[in-house]
């Protein structure tokens, strides 16, 4: 029966989107708390280079993207550790990996590459194999974050405090880097390289207004992402709009609503 249900392309798309929304929503909170937004963007842009290399060497796209995203994330961390300003390092690597990726793609036979599918996602074309990879990747990310949650949160608050409690902040940073590369790799098919960072940041930022604790914020962010995926897919089906951008656009509307509500609540509290 499940097999029959998965025959429906729309349902496969919905499930893939939900898996990505939950993983990206949780990880996105750390991206927002640690001010790594641009870091997420750089890693996502590197995905295009991963696609090109994967196609050139005929390996799975998922593996290619995962490796390149991981490599870029590690290079950024290393350079930043050697005294280069973080924003400079990211500016160099984000755009150069995108540029190298686009150049590399141009060497490949045109029939093999529909670049816009990788830039903006192609969620409605998610096959059973894709869905399995996305599900495993997302579950890995959620599991990794849940396992390291307390240590990650402590290291995010203060590296010194973490050290004094016997936690190694460098290892926790590596956990986040790995999770980020995984999210980029599984999200590529769903929202595309250019919009992955949006799925990380917008649901988390939207959840901030309503959350009183870090766990609540992560849960809310996952939920908001899921609603945006379901709504965006529905929108795309009825209005024939591109699916990935529709999802992100809905998430952005949710953010605008949440920010306005937050401002309103502050005003009311101020008047009391």
């Amino acid at each position, binding site marked *: 029966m499940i097999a029959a249900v998965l025959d429906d392309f729309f349902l496969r798309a919905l499930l893939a989107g939900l898996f990505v929304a939950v993983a990206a929503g949780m990880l996105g909170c750390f991206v927002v708390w*640690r001010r790594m937004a641009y870091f997420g963007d750089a890693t996502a842009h590197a995905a295009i280079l991963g696609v090109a290399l994967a196609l050139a060497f005929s390996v799975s796209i998922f593996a290619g993207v995962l490796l390149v995203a991981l490599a870029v994330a590690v290079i950024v961390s290393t350079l930043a550790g050697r005294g280069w300003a973080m924003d400079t390092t990211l500016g160099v690597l984000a755009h150069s990996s995108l540029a190298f990726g686009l150049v590399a793609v141009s060497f490949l036979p045109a029939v093999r590459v529909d670049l816009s599918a990788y830039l903006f996602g192609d969620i409605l074309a998610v096959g059973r194999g894709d869905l399995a990879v996305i599900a495993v990747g997302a579950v890995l990310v959620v599991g990794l974050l849940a396992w390291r949650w*307390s*240590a990650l949160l*402590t290291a995010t608050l*203060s590296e010194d405090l973490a050290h004094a*409690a016997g936690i190694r902040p460098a290892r926790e940073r590596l956990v986040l880097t790995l999770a980020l590369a995984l999210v980029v790799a599984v999200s590529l098919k769903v929202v595309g390289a250019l919009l992955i960072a949006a799925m990380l940041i917008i649901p988390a930022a939207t959840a*901030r207004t309503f959350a*009183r604790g*870090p766990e609540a914020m992560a849960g809310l962010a996952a939920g908001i992402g899921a609603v945006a995926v379901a709504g965006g897919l529905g929108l795309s089906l009825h209005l024939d709009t591109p699916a990935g951008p529709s999802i992100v656009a809905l998430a952005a509307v949710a953010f605008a609503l949440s920010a306005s509500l937050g401002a309103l609540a502050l005003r009311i509290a101020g008047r009391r």
Partner: protein
Amino acid sequence: MSLIAARGLTAGFGGPPVLRDVDFRIDPAEIVTIVGPNGAGKTLLLRLLLGIQRPDAGRVMRKAGLRLGYVPQRLHIDAALPMTVGRFLSLPLRQGAARQRAVLTDVGLPDLRGQQMTTLSGGQFQRVLLARALLAEPELLVLDEPTQGMDQPGIAAFYRLVEGLRSRLGCAVLSVSHDLHVVMSASDRVICLNGHVCCEGSPRVVSAAPEYRALFGLGTAGALALYRHDHDHDHEHDHPNPHAHPEDAAP
């Protein structure tokens, strides 16, 4: 046996060493204060003693299983991170509500458990950090300039609180400070640090030491009147109003 003992510590931040050949020890229930100008390596020494950073040379020995409570210098919580006081106390190890309330009561903030960390005042924030350090039931409480940004009454209240806790818990206290006129009165031993140990001893011995005076000048000596009223120095240095020290008015 000492809680922490260190020998010949030399360390820096990649460049020339900031600390050279520093020896250190702290015994159970002892109050030790490290004073020194900015850049003297005070925080670096604490980081070495806590094991956050490795020395380039020398070694640090900690008592096996030493229970340590650490209050960091300053902690910025990003506004994007929602965090109640209770949740903060449960990092990294979960603590029951009763335990949280107990340590908050210890620092005089019994009703703060549900409040957001970002809405606390500077003094409340430092007290919450202190409460967090108490969760370990520490044998040694380490305070790294815990009163930065507080006003005079706030600083005095904070150190009175630390003294009260120490006499009740019997723990040792190692603090780093340049608020020496407040801390010194409570200290068993003061270490004057400026890349190396300039001088060391009871507050009285240190404040009279020529090395200490060379480092801090006579300007701060007036403030020592808080606990020592025998003015053993003259007031003829260039101070705008030498007889208007607020400390002099204290009973």
